[in-house]
């Protein structure tokens, strides 16, 4: 990704290749020697976990696609054919279905880590915005994937979500019929969703490449939020972070495997084992869990168009977050007020997720409205004001100093740092 390398390889074959296509030196610079802050905690392992899950989803999906049939009268039974007659088909399908859920668990942790440590701030604004694009692509891909088994929730989820576009004034109905390829969700819809579900992961992989590229220009943020000052602050990515990431991946896979092998249908909805029936509407149409907070925001607004706008705005606001947060200090470690608001935001999002699974009536709607207003207030009101009024704690002079402070060593400045960031200890 960087320009021509100055690394000189002794092996003639390696040198021959690298002088013509510097792929070996590029990998060495970016994946092996890459200088990485030495104080990254385990919340920094989710980038690697997410890359792995994109890989898992693509590989399992590729094989599932060899056995799946995208037709309204065959899709449901073809999935059951995979479960019953394809060698390890049950494993591939459960890995793929639960893989989507764990992909979202990882991405939400990854996003909230970015929020806590201010990873979206200068000079990483574009890196963050590319990340929001990745989130949108993931959501589109997951939504269309959920339609493919053609169960009741597939069909009715697709109906509800595509119908959202009918709220657009004047052209809404035309757009929805264009999306459907007909006058209701039907075979053309299933076919195009399958086609796009196959396409988008590769688009996703390309955008992930850009995300990593944009990361490797400024380098990693870190828990102190202080930029790298000298070589003393960093260690090479390999072997330090390859091994640490590998360990974190195995721990994450342990929880993933627990669901794949022992609770494979817990995160899904039982109604999706009933073949799609346009004549029977399920009692409650509920999206997959990872969409619930957005679903709650959609239903919190009494007006259909307003609800759709609010739902998309909930993600759109993340695009401009780098300019809404006026504080110069990155890490919440040194922002005592922001740290509290951060946790309130986490609770708000979990609360919205809970409310998204509840019927839209009575107190649930009132609570959804309060939390929706708070969600937007956090980004549009609290963050801009906080940067002005918040008194932040003194920042360590460098990453090395913050590390020394954490271990209780060093001189007077380090001791002051320890006192100002006690939660960093241990």
């Amino acid at each position, binding site marked *: 990704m960087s320009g021509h390398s100055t690394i000189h390889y002794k092996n003639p074959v390696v040198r021959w290749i690298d002088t013509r296509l510097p792929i070996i030196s590029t990998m060495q610079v970016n994946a092996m020697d890459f200088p990485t802050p030495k104080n990254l905690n385990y919340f920094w392992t989710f980038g690697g976990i997410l890359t792995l899950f994109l890989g898992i989803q693509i590989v399992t999906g590729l094989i599932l696609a060899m056995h799946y049939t995208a037709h309204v009268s065959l899709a449901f*039974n073809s999935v059951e054919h995979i479960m019953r007659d394809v060698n390890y088909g049950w494993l591939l399908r459960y890995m793929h279905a639960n893989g989507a859920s764990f992909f979202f668990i990882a991405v939400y942790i990854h996003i909230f880590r970015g929020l806590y440590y201010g990873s979206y701030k200068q000079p990483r604004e574009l890196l963050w915005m590319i990340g929001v694009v990745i989130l949108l692509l993931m959501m589109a891909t997951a939504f269309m994937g959920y339609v493919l088994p053609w169960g009741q929730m597939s069909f009715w989820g697709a109906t509800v979500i595509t119908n959202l576009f009918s709220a657009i004034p004047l052209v809404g109905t035309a757009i929805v019929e264009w999306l459907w390829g007909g006058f209701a969700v039907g075979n053309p819809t299933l076919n195009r969703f399958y086609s796009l579900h196959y396409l988008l992961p590769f688009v996703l992989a390309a955008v992930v490449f850009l995300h990593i590229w944009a990361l490797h220009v400024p380098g990693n943020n870190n828990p102190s939020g202080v930029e790298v000052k000298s070589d003393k602050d960093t260690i090479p990515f390999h072997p330090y972070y390859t091994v640490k990431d590998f360990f974190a991946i195995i721990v994450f896979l342990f929880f993933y495997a627990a669901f794949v*092998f022992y609770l494979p249908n817990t995160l899904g909805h039982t109604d999706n084992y009933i073949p799609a029936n346009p004549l029977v509407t399920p009692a409650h149409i509920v999206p997959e869990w990872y969409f619930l907070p957005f679903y709650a925001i959609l239903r919190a607004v009494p007006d259909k168009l307003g609800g759709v706008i609010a739902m998309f705005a909930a993600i759109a606001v993340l695009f401009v977050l780098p300019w809404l947060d006026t504080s110069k200090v990155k890490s919440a470690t040194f922002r005592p007020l922001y740290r509290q608001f951060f946790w309130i935001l986490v609770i708000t999002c979990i609360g919205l997720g809970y409310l998204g699974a509840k019927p839209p009536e009575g107190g649930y709607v*009132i609570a959804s409205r309060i939390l929706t207003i708070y969600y937007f207030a956090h980004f549009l009101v609290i963050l801009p004001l906080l940067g002005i009024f918040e008194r932040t704690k003194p920042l360590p002079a460098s990453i090395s100093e913050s590390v020394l402070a954490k271990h209780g060593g060093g001189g007077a400045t380090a001791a002051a740092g320890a006192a100002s960031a006690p939660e960093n200890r241990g």
Partner: protein
Amino acid sequence: MTMRSAKTKAMILTRIAPVALTAAIAAGALAVPAQAAEETHALKSVHFSFDGPFGTFDRGQLQRGYKVYVEVCSSCHSMDLLAFRNLSEEGGPDFTPEQVRVLAADFPREVIDGPDDVGDMFERPGKPSDNFPPPFPNQAAARASNNGALPPDFSVLAKARHAGPEYIYSLLTGYEDAPAHMEMRDGSYYNPYFPGGQISMAPPLSDELVEYTDDSPMTTEQYAKDISAFLMWAAEPKMEERKRIGFQVMVFLVVLGGLLYFTKQKLWRDVEH
């Protein structure tokens, strides 16, 4: 008014703000009423041999369950995705291939095959490779024979209902006299476990209905339990393989994770981080 006092005021405000907001949000959450009393009956708790991470199917139970299905349920409920050959596959009822040939041929209905040399469809006895022949040629015929109600297909039923096997057991043993205030539709029966409480299926099981040859009690409860287990197997025929491989994977991950942890500790020992 000095700069300092203004600053202090702003600081106090900002310090109070999070607390006040938390309180407001909590008040909002409290506004949520206790969940509207939905008409859901707590399911009967049943212990099944396949419960838990190491649970397996009871072969005898699955064989009895198949008998209950054939003799009672199959006259109305199809099971389109199951083939006779599945009955002898690993992790299932464990019939021998010879037994399966007999079971396929003895099924209450013959299989429709064809067309033959002159273009006619014909009926013939089932073979292990056939799927269970359905009781009705189409949904309209099924409704016409069942007072307008459609008996659901059994293939994945146990996964299509919340807590499938417990639900099926509770439903089959849960018929009661309708409460006095309840107005019943014609031809429907009161069952508190069925959504809405009115089900079009007459109580299908009764004591001594199906002849068991293995000394198991011939009671409604036992029949219900056996058919529930059989339907769970039908919906999830690879469950035993899944749990077995799952255990191997978990052990592998723990060992590899442990090795990696110590590798990482050793590697990072000399790095202040």
